[in-house]
C-alpha cells in the first residue's frame, strides 16, 4: 500500500478517527498495530506471518536477556536473537544470490528447493530486521550496565505487544527511518488530540508528498530511459543529465518518504528521527554519510562499526572497519553484487579521504574550495547511483561507454528541460540550507506559508504517475 494511494488515505483516516476517540483511548496502541497489519498485509497477506515471526523472535530474545541474571545467559540470548534476525534476513533476501554465486541455476532447481529460492522478498524486511537487532542489543547493553531499562515492560505479553508495535508501526515499517528501540519504546503511552503537533506534521507531510509526488514521480518518467537498451540512443549530455536527474529523483523519493513517515508518526503522537539533512551540500564523504539515510548510517556506526573497534585499534583496522561496514551497508540495500560494489566505492572514498586528511585537524575553509568539494562529492555520489539504477554490471559499463561514445548524437532538449525543471526545487531546498541562519532566511521565514501553499498547489496539479518508492525494494 503506497502512501500516495487512495486506499492508504482511507486507512489513515479511519485509524486517525478511531485513535483519538476518548472511549477507545486505552486501545490506541492496539489500533495502530491493527492498522499496521492491514497496511502490511494489503498486497500479500502471507507476509504478515514473517512480520509476526520476526516480532516474536525479538520479543522472546530481548525478554530472555531482561530476565537473565548471568552475563553468559544474557549474551546467549543476545547472540541467539541477532543470529535468528540475520538468519531470517539472509534466508529471505540473500539465499538466491548466494546460490547463484556458488554457480547454481535457480531455474533448474525443482521441488521445495526451487520454491524456497523463488520466494519473493518480504517488503521492508531489511528495515524491521535492523530494528529488531537494535532492540536485542540495546536490551543487552542496558542490562550489562546493571541499570534498570527504562523502555522495558515488566511482563512478557506487554513486552511482546510493545515490540510488535515498535517493529510494525506503519509510518516506518516499509522503508524506515530505522528507529532504535531506545528512541521509540519510551514514547509509548497515551496520546491526546489536544497535544497533537499540527505544524510539524503539516510541514513534514506537505514537503514529503511534494518531493515524492511532484519531483520523484515526474523525474521517474525521464530517468526511465536509463534502462537498457534505451540509453544507447541518447547523447553524452543527455546521459549525464539523466544521471543527474536520477540523483535528484532518488533523494526526492527517499527523503520524501522519510518526511511523510515523520509527519504520519507525528499525527499519532510519535517522533521519528530525521533521515536526511541536505546531503548534496556535503563537502566530504564522511559528511555525506551524516546527512544521507542518517538512521542507517547511525545504526551501522552504533551496532557494527564501533563494536568492530571503530577507529580505536589503529589505522589499518580503521580502514578495514570502514571498508567492511560500507561493503555490508551496500549489500543491505539489495541482493545483488552491484550494491556491494556501490558500498565498496563509498568505503574506498571514505578510506581515501581519511588517508589524505591524516590527523590534521586543520579546517581550511574558503567558499570556492567548499564549492569545489561539494561538486566533487556530488559527482562521485551521482555516478555511483548508476549501480542502483542498473543492477547488472554489463549495463553499467555500457552506459559509461555510451557516455564516451555518443558525443555526436543530437541533444534531446525537452528531456534536459524537464530534468532541470523538476530538479530545481531539490537544488533550492539545498540552497535554503546554505542560507540558514542568515538575514535572508529570517526575512523569508515570514513568507514560508507561500512556499507551502505553492507546494500544495503543485501536488494537486502536477503530481506524476504514482510509482513505488525506490527504497521499497530493499
Amino acid at each position, binding site marked *: 500500500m503506497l502512501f500516495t494511494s487512495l486506499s492508504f488515505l482511507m486507512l489513515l483516516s479511519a485509524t486517525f478517527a478511531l485513535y483519538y476517540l476518548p472511549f477507545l483511548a486505552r486501545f490506541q496502541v492496539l489500533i495502530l498495530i491493527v492498522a499496521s497489519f492491514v497496511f502490511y498485509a494489503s498486497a500479500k497477506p502471507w507476509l504478515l506471518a514473517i512480520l509476526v515471526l520476526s516480532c516474536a523472535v525479538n520479543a522472546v530474545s530481548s525478554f530472555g536477556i531482561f530476565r537473565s541474571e548471568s552475563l553468559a545467559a544474557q549474551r546467549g540470548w543476545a547472540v541467539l536473537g541477532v543470529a535468528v534476525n540475520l538468519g531470517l534476513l539472509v534466508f529471505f533476501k540473500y539465499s538466491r544470490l548466494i546460490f547463484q554465486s556458488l554457480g547454481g541455476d535457480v531455474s533448474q532447481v525443482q521441488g521445495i528447493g526451487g520454491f524456497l529460492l523463488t520466494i519473493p522478498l518480504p517488503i521492508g524486511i531489511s528495515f524491521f530486521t535492523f530494528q529488531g537487532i537494535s532492540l536485542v542489543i540495546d536490551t543487552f547493553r542496558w542490562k550489562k550496565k546493571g541499570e534498570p531499562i527504562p523502555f522495558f515492560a515488566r511482563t512478557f505479553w506487554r513486552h511482546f505487544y510493545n515490540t510488535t508495535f515498535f517493529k510494525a508501526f506503519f509510518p516506518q515499517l516499509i522503508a524506515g527511518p530505522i528507529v532504535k528501540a531506545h528512541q521509540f519504546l519510551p514514547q509509548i503511552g497515551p496520546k491526546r488530540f489536544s497535544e497533537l503537533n499540527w505544524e510539524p506534521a503539516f510541514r513534514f507531510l506537505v514537503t514529503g508528498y511534494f518531493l515524492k509526488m511532484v519531483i520523484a514521480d515526474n523525474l521517474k518518467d525521464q530517468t526511465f530511459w536509463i534502462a537498457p537498451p534505451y540509453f544507447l*540512443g541518447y547523447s553524452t549530455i543527455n546521459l549525464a543529465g539523466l544521471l543527474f536527474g536520477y540523483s535528484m529523483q532518488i533523494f526526492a523519493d527517499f527523503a520524501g518518504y522519510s518526511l511523510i513517515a515523520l509527519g504520519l508518526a507525528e499525527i499519532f503522537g510519535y517522533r521519528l528521527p530525521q533521515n536526511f539533512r541536505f546531503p548534496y551540500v556535503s563537502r566530504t564523504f564522511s559528511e555525506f554519510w551524516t546527512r544521507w539515510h542518517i538512521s542507517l548510517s547511525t545504526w551501522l556506526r552504533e551496532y557494527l562499526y564501533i563494536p568492530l573497534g571503530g577507529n580505536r585499534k589503529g589505522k589499518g583496522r580503521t580502514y578495514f572497519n570502514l571498508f567492511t561496514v560500507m561493503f555490508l551497508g551496500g549489500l543491505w540495500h539489495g541482493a545483488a553484487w552491484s550494491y556491494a560494489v556501490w558500498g565498496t566505492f563509498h568505503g574506498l572514498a571514505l578510506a581515501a579521504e581519511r588517508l589524505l586528511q591524516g590527523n590534521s585537524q586543520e579546517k581550511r575553509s574558503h567558499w570556492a574550495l567548499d564549492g569545489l568539494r561539494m561538486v566533487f562529492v556530488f559527482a562521485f555520489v551521482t555516478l555511483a547511483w548508476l549501480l542502483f539504477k542498473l543492477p547488472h554490471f554489463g549495463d553499467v559499463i555500457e552506459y559509461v561507454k555510451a557516455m564516451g561514445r555518443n558525443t555526436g548524437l543530437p541533444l534531446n532538449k525537452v528531456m534536459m528541460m524537464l530534468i532541470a525543471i523538476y530538479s530545481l526545487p531539490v537544488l533550492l531546498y539545498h540552497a535554503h540550507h546554505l542560507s540558514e541562519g542568515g538575514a535572508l532566511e529570517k526575512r523569508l521565514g515570514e513568507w514560508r506559508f507561500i512556499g507551502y501553499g505553492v507546494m500544495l498547489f503543485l501536488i494537486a496539479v502536477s503530481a506524476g504517475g504514482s510509482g513505488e518508492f525506490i527504497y521499497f525494494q530493499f
Partner: protein
Amino acid sequence: MNSSTSNSRGALIIRSTAVFLVLFIGYNLAVMVAKPAGSFLQSQPEKNAAVADDYILGERAADTVIVGSSLSARLDESDLGPGFLNLSFAGGTAATGLEIVDRLERVPKLVLVETNQIRNLDSSFVDARFSPLGRFLKRRIPTARAKYRPVNLLLGALRKKTGREDLTPDATVFANLLEEQRRDYENVPDPEWLRSSVTRMAQQVASLEAKGVRVVFFVLPVYPQLRDLPKARDLLQAFHTTFPPPGNRWIECPPGDFITADGIHLVPQSARLYAGLLLAELRHGPQ
C-alpha cells in the same frame, strides 16, 4: 504563551491553505477561460492517459480508430486525415485500445488493429480511465487532465513553432539497438499465453463487429532481419490463425525501404510514408 504559539502555528496551515486555494481556483479558471491548446505531454504514461481520456470524454470523435503499441503510436494523425484517431499506447498493446473502444457506447466505423506486438490487456489503466469519479473530475476541473498541467502548457508554448524532426539514426547506435531487438525477437513466445491473448482479442473483435464496427488488421514494417525471427513469426501466425484472411481484412507488411530508429519503431519520415500506404490500401483495397 502556549496559546499564542498554538495560534501562530495554526496560522501557517491556514495561510498555506489559503494560498493553495487561490492558486488552484485561479489557475483552473484561467485554463477554463483561455482554453489553451498545444500542451506538451512529458512521458509515455502521460501521453497514453491523455489520448485515452480525450477519446473517452468524447472530445475527439473519429470514424477510424487505430489500436496498437508504441509501433503504431508513431503514426501521426495529421498524416492520416481528420477522420482518424490513434489510440495506440506505448508500452501497451492493441487489446487495451480495443477494450476502450468496446466499453464506450459510441463506436467508430472502422478499427485498425496493429498485430506487431502483443501484451496483456492493461485492465488497471482502462479501469482508471473509466472510473466514475475520475471522469466526473476530468470533465469539470481542467487540472485533473494531464494536458492542462502547468509544466505541460509551458513546454507546449515553447515548442509551438518547432516541427517534427526527421532524424536518421546514428549507425553505431542503431546497430546496438538492433542487436537488443534481435535478442528480444529470438525469444519464442509461450504458446499457451499467446493463444489465450489472441483468443481474448478475438472476443473483443467479435463484440465490436456485433456493434457494426469493421475491423482491419495491419502489420507495420520492421527491420527485415527481424521479420523471420520467432517472436514476429509466431505472433503473426497466431493472429492469422485466429483471424484468417480473406474472411478478415488484412493489410500486410508493405515492401519498401522503411527506416526505423531501433529496428522496430519507424522514424517520422518512414511513418509518414507508411501512413500514405495505409490510406491508399484503405481507399483502394477490398472493402
